[in-house]
């Protein structure tokens, strides 16, 4: 009887572990609505303190392209992790539960994605405020 309880506990722990790794991460909250301001003033306080604020339109454009490339790269990494986790998940569920323990955590890459996404958004806001293009 004790073995059965232990077995069930192990199974439950594996399922919980599985669900907590490689989690989907929610989109960041939307910025405050600045549409009541003139275009040139639609910047956040943090934008004015950023390195991008001092850049010229041409540099901003280059930075935007680089950031977009990095985002694509990170997205590919995330989708590889997701594919690998799903394979391990299906094997774990159908054949060998301990395989689920090998599922990869994506926290670090997700943090990188968020930072890049914030940077892209900041560049876009500064470009708009400067009326670049």
């Amino acid at each position, binding site marked *: 009887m004790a073995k059965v309880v232990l077995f069930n506990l192990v199974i439950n722990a594996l399922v919980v572990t599985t*669900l907590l790794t490689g989690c*989907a991460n929610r989109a960041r909250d*939307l910025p405050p*609505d600045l549409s009541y301001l003139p275009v040139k003033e639609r910047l956040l306080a943090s934008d004015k303190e950023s390195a991008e604020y001092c850049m010229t339109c041409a540099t901003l454009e280059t930075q935007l392209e680089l950031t977009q490339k990095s985002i694509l790269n990170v997205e590919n990494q995330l989708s590889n992790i*997701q594919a690998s986790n799903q394979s391990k998940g299906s094997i774990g569920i159908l054949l060998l539960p301990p395989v689920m323990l090998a599922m990869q955590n994506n926290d670090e890459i997700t943090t990188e994605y968020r930072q890049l996404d914030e940077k892209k958004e900041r560049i876009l806001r500064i470009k708009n405020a400067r009326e670049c293009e």
Partner: protein
Amino acid sequence: MNYLKKSLLQSSIMITFSVILTGCATWNTSEIANVRPTVQKLVVTEAKDIMLTEGDITDKKYIVLGDISVTVNKTTIFHPDPTKELVNVKLKEEAAKLGADAVTQIRYGTVGISMMSWGSLDGKGRAVQFSH
């Protein structure tokens, strides 16, 4: 020993079923926050005509209608993961219900396993209506 085997079988069946049931059909969730009353007459817009942008719109005046939040979940573990395109389609549908002309400030989450699906992706955006 028999009891252990029976329990093992029961656990396996329960886990398999719960996994299958968490993704039996294609499904989405959506939420609209900060809905602002508009003085303009509600004009029905078609989802396909709604403009999407990750930034702001600066060449036209607009009023904000509300903040949209959508989540697209994959069907079963064997289906492909939800994409940004699917999130965009859902954002357009929700914006159309508000009578919006565009969705600005779009941002996406990252695809991963959620409590309800083997693959979830969410997106947010601000529904706006151009001032006529």
